[in-house]
């Protein structure tokens, strides 16, 4: 393609460095910066830089939303339904309103009208108060009298599918689309509690199975997992005549601002959302939420700031969860291992919400000409699910990655060799090679051939995740006359250290140290940054930051050029100096250059351009890059066949995130993803009482989480994979790091004991059941 006036031709580094680093020529828009060299040639990007807000976090100085106190601030609490399905007949809040500490009280449901007064899960909001203290608010809630007409309910996935099951919704009241924050196809039929199927067909599966030499078939289950953010969902809402300011523990300041403006009929310029410390979200803090709307409404009513913090029980019951699934998977293969057909049926439940699909791993990871899927959402009387770290693909990988191993065994092909044959991704091919070497794959024995009470095994599994990008994403870079530099965006640091990465990007452009860049983020007064979900933060904001910084540098070089009597294009910024490229003995310090500025500052705002070879898909403010993010994880386990305890001894995680921007921070994220996978595999499960609909483990001790002693040795290995697609060529890591862990452990458990466990979590009881040592346990949702 010939260059026109709006583009120019550039040559980018391209390829996986450990395989071969080559080049790719692309047309790029003229306002994009010059290609960023590979990390080996850079001063700051790609280096293990400690996070810039680390000191504040280890000294307790960071202000989290739960720490925000405003003058005259009140405390909000929510009255929640004690029944899983009921119509609210009346709410009498007169006694509560007389409580001396109460400043505002409001019903959340409208009694009497079955359409709007129905509560559908234990923990659904019914009324709310704002009072002078949390204790006063809770005292007031106890004075609210609510009359309920109890309705039949169902909290079990299997029972909810039966035609005679109590209906959670009727066709008029059922949510239709994106109700849970995670996409669900619109316009699907509802039969009882079962919505769907969402179908996907490719080729002719029937013929594919007929031509198969082997067919494996199995049912797989995944449990409901809760997010368990350490900082509860929290908001401080400050409604004033001249505008609304909200402090919120959120993954998306700009998105929440938009929701607030729409919900309360305010112009965007009078809504401000701020977050400094953000104590974990994992998908559950992506939107305003019912608690957010309630806090703002209370503040408006009370004419005072209101802080609303969920307690741990509310966190577990009504702040989202990863939907549980039942999957039936059938795969046919030829003798040489090539796949002939895949057929997948799923029934998942996000409680009263939609979004229990199982993603696209089965559709997309392996070459297979014939494919069919039918995915269903099943409503139950339980708290709404929402996106949770790699939604869909995490339960999806649980099934497909075990089934692929079964095919390999039936064909007597090594699981890695089979994947080499059917997985076309060069990224995962290299990851398999690296990981196999690190874990010592050649010492893997046949399934169940270890002896003794404690049996060891090795397993592998792979992941697939889209390389997501937020198009509506911008960043400002400022250079002041005294040489100070700052980067500004509404993007929030949820623990990934994105602020530090932004400082690296800007420091690299100006030839400065990271600590010379002030990072101002987490405030919608700055240009709107991306959400911190969908593993898109780094991919979206770092190119914008580099583009803005390069534009500011050009302005600065113009000033320096006059002083140095050189062409601006012949100047470079390096090690705190502005130098003449072909005569580095001539130059001036960065500060001397900025001192020459005519005004007190120079600044540029840049947005995320399109990927240079365009996106594969655009969806509103978001887009998906051409390439996928692949990961391969290996697990080494020891299974105690007498107690049923599975111990994960080691995980080797080989991951791709394009250009690694900061390996220290990425290692932390990958370790966290692996650990969340270990916890999902072995411990976590929301348990609902079938007779009352209540969660029986709504806390952090009976809801089991992996702790320090359950943490395996985790080897993190990052590919350095250049595509020449953006100003930084960086993509995400948070979700890809978590998808493959559980099936890798399951495949290792199979290798250890020779029995396949198809339900999560793999508790001691499940292992002993699989070994035939205790009777079959009834499944739970």
């Amino acid at each position, binding site marked *: 393609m010939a260059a026109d006036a709006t583009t120019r031709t550039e040559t980018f580094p391209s390829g996986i460095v450990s395989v071969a680093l080559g080049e790719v020529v692309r047309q790029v828009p003229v306002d994009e910066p010059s290609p960023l060299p590979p990390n080996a040639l850079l001063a700051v990007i790609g280096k293990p830089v400690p996070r810039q807000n680390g000191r504040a976090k*280890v000294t307790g100085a960071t202000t989290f939303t739960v720490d925000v106190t405003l003058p005259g601030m009140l405390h909000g609490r929510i009255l929640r339904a004690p029944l899983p399905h009921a119509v609210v007949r009346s709410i009498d809040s007169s006694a509560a309103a007389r409580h001396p500490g109460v400043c505002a009280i409001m019903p959340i449901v409208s009694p009497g009208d079955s359409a709007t007064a129905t509560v559908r899960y234990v923990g659904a909001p019914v009324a709310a108060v704002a009072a002078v203290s949390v204790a006063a608010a809770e005292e007031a809630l106890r004075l609210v009298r609510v009359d309920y007409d109890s309705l039949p309910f169902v909290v079990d996935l299997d029972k909810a599918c039966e035609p005679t099951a109590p209906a959670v919704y009727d066709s008029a009241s059922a949510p239709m689309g994106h109700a849970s924050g995670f996409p669900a196809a619109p316009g699907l039929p509802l039969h009882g509690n079962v919505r769907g199927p969402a179908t996907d067909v490719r080729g002719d599966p029937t013929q594919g199975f007929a031509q198969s030499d082997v067919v494996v078939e199995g049912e797989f289950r995944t449990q409901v997992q809760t997010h368990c953010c*350490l900082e509860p969902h929290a908001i401080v809402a400050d409604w004033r005549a001249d505008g609304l300011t909200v402090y919120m523990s959120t993954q998306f300041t700009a998105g929440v601002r938009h929701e607030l403006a729409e919900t309360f009929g305010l112009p965007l310029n009078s809504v401000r959302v701020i977050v400094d410390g953000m104590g974990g979200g994992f998908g559950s803090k992506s939107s305003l939420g019912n608690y957010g709307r309630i806090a703002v409404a209370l503040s408006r009513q009370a004419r005072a700031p209101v802080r609303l913090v969920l307690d741990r029980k509310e966190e577990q019951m009504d702040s989202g969860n990863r939907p549980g699934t039942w999957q039936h998977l059938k795969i046919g293969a030829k003798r040489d291992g090539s796949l002939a057909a895949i057929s997948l049926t799923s029934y998942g439940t996000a409680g009263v919400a939609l979004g229990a699909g199982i993603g696209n791993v089965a559709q997309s990871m392996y070459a297979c000409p014939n494919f069919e899927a039918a995915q269903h959402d099943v409503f139950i009387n339980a708290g709404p699910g929402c996106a949770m770290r790699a939604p869909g693909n995490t339960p999806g990988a649980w099934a497909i990655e075990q089934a692929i191993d079964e095919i390999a065994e039936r064909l007597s092909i090594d699981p890695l060799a089979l994947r080499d044959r059917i997985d076309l991704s060069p990224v995962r091919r290299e990851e398999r090679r690296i990981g196999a070497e690190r874990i010592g794959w050649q010492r893997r024995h046949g399934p169940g051939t270890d002896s003794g009470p404690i049996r060891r095994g090795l397993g592998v599994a792979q992941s697939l995740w889209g390389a997501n990008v937020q198009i509506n994403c911008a960043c400002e870079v400022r250079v002041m006359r005294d040489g100070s530099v700052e980067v500004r965006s509404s993007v929030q640091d949820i*623990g990934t250290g994105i602020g530090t990465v932004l400082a690296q990007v800007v420091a690299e452009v100006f030839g400065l140290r990271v600590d010379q860049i002030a990072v101002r983020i987490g405030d919608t007064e700055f240009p709107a940054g991306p959400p911190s979900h969908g593993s898109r933060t780094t991919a979206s904001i770092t190119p914008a930051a580099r583009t803005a910084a390069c534009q500011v540098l050009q302005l600065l070089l113009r000033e320096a050029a006059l002083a140095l009597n050189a062409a601006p294009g012949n100047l470079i910024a390096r090690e705190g100096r502005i130098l003449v490229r072909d005569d580095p003995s001539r130059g001036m310090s960065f500060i001397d250059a900025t001192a020459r500025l005519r005004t007190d500052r120079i600044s540029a705002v840049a947005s995320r351009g399109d990927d240079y070879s365009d996106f594969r898909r655009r969806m509103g403010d978001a887009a998906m890059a051409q390439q996928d993010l692949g990961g391969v994880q290996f697990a080494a386990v020891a299974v105690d066949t007498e107690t049923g305890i599975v111990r994960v001894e080691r995980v080797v995680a080989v991951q791709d995130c394009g250009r690694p921007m900061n390996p220290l921070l990425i290692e932390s994220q990958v370790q*966290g993803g692996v650990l969340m996978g270990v916890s999902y595999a072995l411990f976590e499960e929301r348990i609902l009482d079938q007779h009352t609909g209540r969660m029986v483990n709504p806390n952090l001790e009976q809801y089991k989480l992996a702790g320090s002693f359950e943490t395996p040795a985790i080897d993190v290995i990052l590919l350095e994979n250049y595509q020449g697609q953006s100003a930084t060529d960086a993509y995400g890591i948070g979700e890809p790091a978590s998808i493959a862990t559980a099936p890798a452990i399951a495949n290792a458990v199979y290798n250890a004991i020779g029995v396949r466990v198809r339900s999560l979590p793999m508790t001691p009881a499940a292992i002993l059941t699989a070994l035939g040592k205790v009777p079959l346990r009834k499944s739970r949702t």
Partner: protein
Amino acid sequence: MIETASAIIGTVEAKEANTESVIGPDPVSITLRVNGVARILQVEPRMTLAEALRGSLGLTGTKIACNRGACSACTVWLDDVTVCSCMMLAIEVGARNVTTIEGLAVGDKLHPVQTAFVEHDALQCGFCTPGMVMSCAALLEHQSDPTADDVNAAISGHICRCGTYPHVVAATLAAAKARKA
């Protein structure tokens, strides 16, 4: 009642804390020795130490995540013992010295565990971090040369959803080494 509760952690200062047989529900005046400073504050008897620190005293570095002793985010030192500050009442503290995350550094000089946490990236969202730091620093007070298992034991009651345990262990071992050097 107060004496019994205080006995849980071994020292009894109930007399000093309050001599009346029945107190509350209205606030009572107590003195808390926090980070070397005696602070007088009004607390309702039902107020936990964590609430008193975070509310009345404005020491919000101590975090409440589960409010029932299951996650250790609220860990502070009572003299030289780590406790979950959500699991004791403010009126139980008596004359013992409370050390919170704000009191660990000496002026601008971070505790070696704090320095090592930053260098080893032993934190992500940072919400469990103050509690983690307090437990790891306490470990080094009692054991100058810990093993990885010692660190794992010291933080076994802590929950970190971001999964920082490997870096927490590495940081604490490095801090122990740095202190000896």
